[in-house]
């Protein structure tokens, strides 16, 4: 949302277009769009460019719709947490009913049109992803178990599978590997965030690992998941979607990621507070680069393969 729209809002008290767009979590959407695009382009079946672009748009709209439904259900939590207080509902710009109506409408639109544009398996998988994120994660897991982010992470891991399904009409080992990559990446990414956002989850009474098992246990969990992720990420290099470029990226980034996790586990709260959680913040930023670089490398391998290079 721009400054202009904020000013307009404060002057008129009426939601602007940007406020409704903010319901779709545009920053999260970039991850959805990119990973879905990689899934679509890495698939061995060529897709018409216009249909491919439409498929990515519908997947993005579906992801955004689930974000709107998440904001509708979690508006009480969002109002308490510093990180989410400026979202359209707690900021008083959009009502809960509006968010619900937009979320449901866009969900149906995205699934139906993805089905029409590509195939009904992809449309169904998008519908399941929205269901998983809104019902399984938001309504059930998030407020109930410290494993919320572990299981709920599956919702964010589906887009490359949907992209792959849009091209092929099905699921394969390669698309499952791309799913696993995001699935295993999610817990350390969010636990690092929970460490440096400190009291946010406590205040909102969300049972994050930092709240239920303590910050020490969270640091250990980050290291364990990072090691498991490294094995998976480097191992993927030797599958059909991997290759030398991917291997080089995976080795470098996983070495840095494991090093960051070891640094986190060696620190205690006093050390972290002394430098305002510098290592945790650095690890979180690296995690963003980590995912984009891995999927970027899969995309490079797929493009090279078209010219008779790439892969093993």
């Amino acid at each position, binding site marked *: 949302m721009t400054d202009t*729209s904020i000013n*307009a809002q404060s002057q*008129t008290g*009426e*939601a*602007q*277009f*940007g406020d*409704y*767009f903010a319901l779709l979590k545009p920053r999260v959407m970039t991850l959805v769009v990119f990973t879905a695009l990689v899934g679509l382009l890495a698939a*061995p*079946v*060529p897709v*018409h460019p*216009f*249909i491919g672009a*439409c498929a990515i*748009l519908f997947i993005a709209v579906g992801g955004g719709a689930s974000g709107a439904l998440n904001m509708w259900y979690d508006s009480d939590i969002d109002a308490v947490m510093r990180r989410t207080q400026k979202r359209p509902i707690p900021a008083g710009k959009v009502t809960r009913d509006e968010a619900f109506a937009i979320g449901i409408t866009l969900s149906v639109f995205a699934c139906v*049109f993805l089905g*029409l*544009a*590509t*195939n*009904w398996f992809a449309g169904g998988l998008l519908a399941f992803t929205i269901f998983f994120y809104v019902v399984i994660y938001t309504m059930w897991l998030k407020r109930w178990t410290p494993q919320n982010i572990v299981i709920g992470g599956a919702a964010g891991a589906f887009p490359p599978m949907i992209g792959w399904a849009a*091209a*092929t*009409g*099905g699921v394969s080992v390669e698309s499952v590997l791309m799913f696993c990559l995001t699935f295993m990446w999610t817990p350390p990414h969010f636990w690092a965030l929970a460490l440096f956002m400190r009291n946010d989850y406590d205040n909102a009474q969300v049972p994050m690992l930092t709240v239920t098992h303590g910050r020490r246990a969270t640091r250990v969990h980050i290291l364990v998941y990072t090691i498991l992720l490294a094995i998976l990420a480097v191992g993927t290099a030797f599958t059909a979607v991997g290759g030398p470029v991917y291997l080089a990226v995976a080795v470098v980034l996983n070495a840095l990621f494991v090093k960051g996790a070891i640094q986190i586990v060696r620190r205690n709260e006093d050390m972290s507070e002394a430098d305002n959680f510098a290592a945790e913040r650095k690890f979180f930023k690296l995690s963003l680069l980590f995912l984009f670089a891995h999927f970027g490398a899969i995309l490079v391998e797929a493009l090279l393969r078209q010219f008779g290079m790439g892969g093993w």
Partner: protein
Amino acid sequence: MSFQPEHELHKRRFGRNLGLGLVLAAFVAIVFGMTMVKLTRGGLGPKPATQEAGQ
């Protein structure tokens, strides 16, 4: 011929209406584009994966 002065509501909702108008225009363009692609490829149903792979 005189035009009625623009109501304050129209000014207030200009950004919102413009955004919605653009979204609707994009929607029409997408449906038209998809229809054209489907028709020129010889059928409105999705092609089986194996058939496309062989192309």
